[in-house]
């Protein structure tokens, strides 16, 4: 009997069963005080360890989803259920949102400082976080002395210093120039595969979302809702810079782009349709 039971367990383990989602949003409505409906009946599962992008035009409520997940606001209706209680969260805003009066070290220390961790105790964690974002030598610099991309790296280091299980990123690279943005995308992809954290990434860039994500949820505006879901086939862990040159990348970009056009209520441009099979 005992042996049978063991065998059964082994068999069950061998079959890939989808683990329960890390967080589930069910019928989430969000109406702001000014009567604007940000979200209408959003259903969304976020799986542990995935890189999920929320892609959509302005006003589709994608940032509101992040704020709901971060607990900065609560849904008007519907529910948000976390699998684990109080997971450690990290949040990266569109702007670096650093305190200009303190140096890089003190900025990264902030989340731990608020939790009562002394500067000396936090030091190894802060140095590790700065190392992860490639800013090891910049602890004493002030935000003003850094470029936009470097400030963003500090912001990411600050989010990483608590070793979050969930990283929420709200269009973090939207204000950066294209070259810096590509570099940060590469670094984020590498960093993420070494961390194994779940990432929810809000963006309005098709290319960025395809390059980084396991899964893309396309959202439409007025009222904000999810309209399409796209799985990016190539596993994120094995992707490299060359992924941008792959057919799979191009195909997914076309597919995502079309979904976005549908979400925005206009027809995909004809040229895209004509070229899609050729790609």
């Amino acid at each position, binding site marked *: 009997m005992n042996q049978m039971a063991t065998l059964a367990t082994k068999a069950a383990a061998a079959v890939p069963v989808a683990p329960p989602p890390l967080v589930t949003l069910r019928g989430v409505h969000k109406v702001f005080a000014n009567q604007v409906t940000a979200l209408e009946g959003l259903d969304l599962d976020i799986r542990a360890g995935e890189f999920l992008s929320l892609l959509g035009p302005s006003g589709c409520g994608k940032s509101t989803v992040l704020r709901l997940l*971060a607990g900065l606001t609560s849904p008007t209706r519907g529910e948000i259920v976390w699998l684990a209680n109080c997971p450690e969260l990290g*949040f990266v805003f569109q702007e670096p949102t650093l*305190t*200009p009066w*303190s140096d890089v070290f003190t900025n990264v220390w902030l989340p731990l400082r*608020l939790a009562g961790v002394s500067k000396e105790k936090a030091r190894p964690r802060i140095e590790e976080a700065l190392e992860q974002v490639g800013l090891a030598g910049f602890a004493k610099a*002030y935000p003003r002395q850094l470029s936009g991309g470097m400030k963003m790296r500090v912001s990411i280091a600050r989010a990483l210093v608590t070793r979050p299980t969930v990283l929420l990123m709200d269009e973090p690279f939207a204000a950066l120039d294209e070259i810096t943005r590509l570099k940060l995308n590469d670094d984020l992809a590498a960093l993420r595969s070494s961390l194994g954290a779940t990432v929810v990434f809000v963006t309005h860039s098709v290319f960025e979302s395809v390059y980084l994500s396991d899964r893309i949820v396309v959202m439409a505006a007025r009222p904000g809702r999810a309209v399409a879901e796209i799985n990016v086939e190539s596993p994120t862990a094995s992707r490299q810079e060359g992924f941008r040159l792959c057919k799979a990348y191009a195909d997914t970009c076309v597919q995502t782009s079309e979904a976005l056009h549908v979400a925005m209520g206009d027809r995909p441009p004809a040229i895209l349709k004509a070229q899609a099979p050729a790609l």
Partner: protein
Amino acid sequence: MSREDFVGYAVPAITLGVGLFAWEALVRYFAVPTYLLPAPSLIISTLITDWPTLSASLWVTLSITLKALGVAVVGSVALAILFAQSRLVERAFYPFAVAMQVTPIVAIAPLLLIYLTPGVAVLVCAFLVAFFPLLANTTLGLSSADHNLIDLFQMYRASRMQQFMLLRLPSALPYFLAGLRISGGLALIGAIVAEIAAGSAGQGSGLAYRIVESGFRLNIPRMFAALLLISVAGITIHLLLTALSHWLLRDWHDSERGRES
């Protein structure tokens, strides 16, 4: 010294020099009587000969100014913090602070002289004019912290105290310092104006009193010498507060940016 520094210091110095020279030359050429317009050289020599009297008066005026400024700093920051804690308190008191500010100090001074001793009345006048810019700026500063940072603090479950000490207070610092620079100058003006008002009450030994007294005695060179001291005191206060502001903000605030890049 860079070319820009040279231009920055040398040009105003040359302007001043040429102006003083022209003044001296015109006064001598037209033999203008000293009770109308004394030459700069006479003003300087009066300043030296009358230094014991004038320096004592300078000290009186400066000590009133600094005391008033000190009380204004403590009072305005305390009240601004109170305003930041409660909207209701702000609503209740702010209109009165504005009313106090817009009423000309010269009009209040005689009234204060009825209730208070001249020394205290002068101090209160200087305090009243210095108080408002500090209060208005600090109140604005405390409520102008970056909204995303407030969200971030909330997300990391910061206490009210942490949010105040680590976010609101440093955010308010540049505003406070801007207010302080305005108030520093205003405190001196308030002290002088109140002293002139009180001077007619016969008590006082500050620089403003010396000016009034010299006017009565037609001692115009001394009047100019006292005026020069007031002016120098005002400039010194401004420079010191600017230096303080630079020292506190140089590492991070955009207003200090031009110096590096």
